[in-house]
């Protein structure tokens, strides 16, 4: 008896080991590509964050924690007192706030749009999918300029609002956070719609209809049937919108008028005109760790919720 259950256990262990090997083998090519083309070279940046800035570019190979110290504390250039680097905190907070708002807006607009596309019949679905990506085949910069053209004081948005009698004087939308928000929501919308579509498309509408037939009310149908299906899509879309928009660069610069930086612009400044690579490096490593920690927390929470996820 004990022998039999023992071999059964080995069989199970074998199957588990095979499954793990298969999963790793399937993931390895992607990991290898990322190691060469993205994550591996970032080690250079990690090393740089512990060095001194070079005189005109690059770094000097002298180890120091200065850059890390600079993130939180700054030496006042006039009286040499050391205080909290409030400029960094302001920039960080603005980035988080704008990115969260962008995620929310794209979700509110993207969910109905993805639902609409997913409920079309086969070939029409492809048509609508293409329709949502085609605007993004034109260059980002030129699209941003077009949005700028629309939001101008004499642009079509203001003219339309005046013609409709909503306002009498043109609104200064351009070069404000509102303009950045509009621009980012535009740029990141497909990043929300496509994963949502991929998730919603598998919704079995017979199931929903059955739910209605069983006299469940709308809220119940949504919570019990629809939500579990689209939740992975919402998560994927939110990650794809929130995380890259934290580091957005072109939109805040062009539509925000460059008066107020976001993290992406600030880090760019360090690698560009500011010529302080170690500070840029340490800031981006910190950002990487914060986002990674948030993602890990999410994975933890969701795997506790649904053990098979």
């Amino acid at each position, binding site marked *: 008896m004990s022998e039999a259950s023992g071999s059964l256990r080995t069989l199970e262990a074998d199957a588990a080991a095979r499954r793990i090997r298969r999963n790793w083998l399937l993931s390895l090519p992607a990991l290898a590509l990322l190691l060469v083309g993205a994550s591996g070279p970032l080690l250079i940046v990690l090393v740089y964050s512990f060095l001194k800035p070079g005189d*005109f570019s690059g770094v000097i190979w002298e180890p120091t924690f200065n850059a890390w110290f600079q993130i939180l504390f700054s030496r006042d250039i006039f009286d040499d007192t050391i205080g909290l680097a409030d400029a960094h905190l*302001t920039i960080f907070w603005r980035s988080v706030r704008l990115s969260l708002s962008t995620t929310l807006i794209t979700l509110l607009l993207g969910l109905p749009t993805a639902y609409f596309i997913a409920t079309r019949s086969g070939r029409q679905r492809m048509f609508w999918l293409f329709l949502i990506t085609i605007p993004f085949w034109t260059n980002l910069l030129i699209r941003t300029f077009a949005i700028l053209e629309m939001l*101008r004081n004499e642009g079509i948005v203001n003219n339309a609002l005046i013609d409709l009698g909503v306002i009498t004087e043109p609104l200064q939308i351009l070069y404000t956070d509102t303009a950045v928000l509009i621009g980012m929501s535009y740029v990141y919308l497909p990043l929300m719609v496509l994963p949502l579509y991929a998730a919603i498309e598998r919704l079995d509408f017979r199931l929903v209809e059955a739910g209605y037939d069983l006299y469940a009310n709308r809220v119940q149908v949504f919570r019990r049937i629809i939500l579990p299906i689209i939740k992975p899509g919402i998560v994927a879309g939110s990650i794809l919108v929130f995380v890259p928009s934290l580091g957005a660069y072109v939109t805040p610069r062009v539509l925000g008028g460059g008066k107020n930086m976001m993290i992406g612009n600030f880090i760019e400044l360090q690698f560009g005109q500011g010529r302080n690579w170690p500070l840029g490096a340490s800031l981006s490593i910190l950002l990487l760790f914060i986002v990674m920690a948030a993602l890990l927390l999410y994975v933890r929470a969701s795997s506790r919720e649904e053990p098979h996820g």
Partner: protein
Amino acid sequence: MRTSLLALTAAATLALSAPAFAAGELNIYNWGNYTNPKLIEKFEKTYDVKVTLTDYDSNTTALTKIEAGGHGFDIVVPTNNYVPIYVEKGLLLETRPDQMENFKNLSKQWQDVTWDPNRHYTVPWQWGTTGVAVDTSVYGGDINTSAIFLDPPAELVGKVNVVPEMNDVINLTLFYVGGEACTTDKTVLRKVRDTLMAAKPKWLSMDYGTTDKLSSGEYKATVNWNGSTFRARLNNPKVAYGYPKEGYPLWMDSVAVLKDAKNVENAKLFQNFIMDPENAAMISAFARYANGVDGSEAFMPEEMKTAPEIVTPEALRSAGKFLPTCPPESRDLYTAIWTELQK
């Protein structure tokens, strides 16, 4: 669909393989939208050389890429205050333009310059000034002052743009408060910071694209380069260019040959080629800046010979200063002020 996919894959495979070789090659790395295609065509015809042009958008990007190596460029066109950095880092080849045939065409004032003593490395591409552009239909007062953006008159409040060029803006402000370029004097820098912080709420934006927005009337005033203002004035005659009397930066983009260039002889030919007046005029006709070669005026478009953006008024000439290469200490201070300004 399947066949078109196949065709695309085939095209993609072709693109991966090496490009065809011409008799000679030259790889130029220059600012975007800055090189007259006709000039390149003429050079290619004259010397049977295939020229490849690649763009960059800032001095720092160019320097960073060239320092990293493996780029494949022969020629780069840094601004004057970046030339000593390239030289010090050993990135440039000493091509001795001063011994080239066409060197005699160079204006006297450009034959010996602080950033390249006796012209051992570089040849002028174009030079210009950084000043202010104002829409005179809105403001009719004195425009030859940095007060246009540092202490805007009531008519211009909320309608001023400042280009996000740290060096130009900080130095304009330094000159305005009576300081010197690259200073580390704290009392002066405090004035710089306070002036900028007090002025910022009166600005509309800090952005490029000034030619367009001056033309359309969106900016009533902006910190701007002279050539860009010239282009804007051709669209909007009310636009005028001011040379701040407190002091304004001069700059010169300079053609240099890289030490790891593969086509050194062609690169030298190019340096000599652009010191010819007719060729230099082609450069200016395209980007609307002066070039530094005597006799090129004869070949230039009529409107350039008298343009107030190109011909600096005698009285304001001495206020223009070439920016030196600032040491790291002042750079750190400038970045700190800049960060506070844009936070």
